[in-house]
């Protein structure tokens, strides 16, 4: 029973992480109608993983969410954002013109909905990927704090 002394931390963290992720998703999808959006949600999702890394150690966090994955996630986010812009171009609109995505008449809102959701998703991927990459870059440099040092 070596690690008994932060059993409370571990248990509470396990309870908290799903709530944090859920709240992040709420902020993400609420962004269409009110305050919130991809940037805040991306930070919150990254915080969930960072909390996991703080309590269970960076190596196990890196096993759960590998650095290669976070780096690609950031890249995919930017690709998604810019890709929606190019999609609008291909449909004959201006760059990032949501109205042109499905070539709707003025008054149609389908393109607006799909456009903003994809854009915000791109921001979510980009921000959470970049946050975690930065965290890993800093946290990966120092030696792990051993249990006896607590």
């Amino acid at each position, binding site marked *: 029973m070596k690690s008994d002394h932060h059993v409370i931390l571990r248990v509470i963290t396990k309870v908290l992480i799903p709530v944090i992720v859920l709240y992040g998703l709420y902020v993400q999808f609420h962004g269409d109608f009110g305050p919130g959006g991809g940037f805040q949600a991306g930070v919150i999702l990254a915080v969930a993983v960072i909390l996991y890394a703080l309590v269970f150690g960076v190596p196990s966090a890196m096993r759960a969410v590998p650095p290669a994955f976070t780096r690609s996630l950031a*890249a995919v986010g930017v690709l998604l954002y810019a890709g929606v812009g190019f999609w609008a171009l291909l449909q004959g609109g*201006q760059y990032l013109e949501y109205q042109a995505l499905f070539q709707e008449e003025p008054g149609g809102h389908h393109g607006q909905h799909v456009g903003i959701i994809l854009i915000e998703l791109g921001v979510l991927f980009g921000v959470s990927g970049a946050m975690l990459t930065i965290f890993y870059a800093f946290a990966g440099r120092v030696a792990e704090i051993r249990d006896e040092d607590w």
Partner: protein
Amino acid sequence: MIDLLLDTAPRWALLHAPALLVMAPLFLAPLLAILPSGRLSWLISIFATLFALFCALILVGQVQASPVGVVGYDVGNWPMPIGIVLRVDALNSMILLLVASIGVLATIFSWPTVKAEIPERKHPLFYSAFLVCFAGLCGVAITGDAFNLFVFLEISSISTYVLVALGAGRDRRALPAAFNYLIMGTLGASFYIIGVGFLYSATGTLNIADIASKLPDLAGNRSVEAGFAFIIVGLGLKAAVWPLHQWLPNAYSYSPSFVTMFLSATATKVALYALIRFLFTVFRPEFAFEQATFTYLLMPLGLAAMITCSFQAVFQTDVRRTLAYSSVAQVGYMILGVSVGTVAGVSAGLFHLLNHAMIKGALFMAVAGVVLTFQGTTIRDFAGLGRTAPWTMTGFAIAALSLIGVPLTAGFQSKLQLGYALFDQGMWWAVVFVVFSSFLAVIYMGRILEAIFFRPPINPRKSRKEAPILLLVPLWILALANIYFGITTELPLGLARDAAAAAFGLEAF
């Protein structure tokens, strides 16, 4: 030639050139970050910069063909004060052409030096950061929105810090240099955004053209004047205006040689463009506080840069530091031209901006060749290279002569134009400073040229060791451009004059 391009280019390229110019490199950058192969990412970078050059040429043609001299593009089809517009006139089409053509030449020559200086697994990420930087610089030059300009300025700056820091593989001093640059660059960007905030509070808009149209009614408004001061300091930091240039010598000396070459020819130039845009398009020289800025701030700073940094360049032992200090001195020439406050002055400044990009591009490319073959950048390392690497060093010498301002080179022509502009305003005493600074250039470049051509090699067993052909071709394109534009100045001088007229909001040509 440009007419032919406008006739043959596909319709989508003509319609969307402003957006594609920035977004194509910015879209390819994250793609490179997940690619496994360095060589492939190099080829894609060449493609991206070539495509940007293609768009820039289209824009130059469209601006010249347009009756009002402006090409606009509404991002997301949101029109002017609400949405972000990309707005291209003669001034920024010239800058875009410069950045894109230097980008193409730099990317082509980069592969041998990147292979030698950057660890292999970082090659795709390196090119990814380069493309982000390139797209950011193009974005600063193309946008018509003051806040969007800040965003692109940060995009290019942050990737620049990364690129500078990657020089750590060759010299650990790249890390403090990059950190120093990061602090100074962030300060500059913060000052700029504070200034934009003041302007926004006074005018209620972020669109550059819209701010410009509202400012004449706000004469004497304190927050406009405070915003002006913040923006001048912020952009001055980015453009390395003396004495805000402290980040530049270290950043140029320790970054990978490809990065030095690309930055010296583009980064400070783009910041200087933004400065000119704010000095002449947003604020107007008729404003009393701006006249005072020209006479009591920019002109003394320009002169001080020309003299002190040329002196500092004389005492350097490292070739890259000599060239870096000389860069700050050359920014002084441009600032001097701008501070004359007339169309002739600004066009002389912009003309020197174009020529200096060609000169420093060629010089740093040749230095990159020496780093590649002999692993040294001190003047001692250059001794006798005129015999062992004649092609590289002849290219270096041509650009060096152009930097000094020898007749029949581009550098001479721009100093001539600067002299004309100064004489027009009766400022003959400033011409004395220009000539004196050129004499200092003779000394600091002369020291290097003397070592190259007249001293015996330090290691006589060094046989012919020319830079690779990938490096020699772009180097010689730039070197020959220095001679060509020193003989016929029609093309760059025409671009610079139209650009200066556009900066003043005058009808071009």
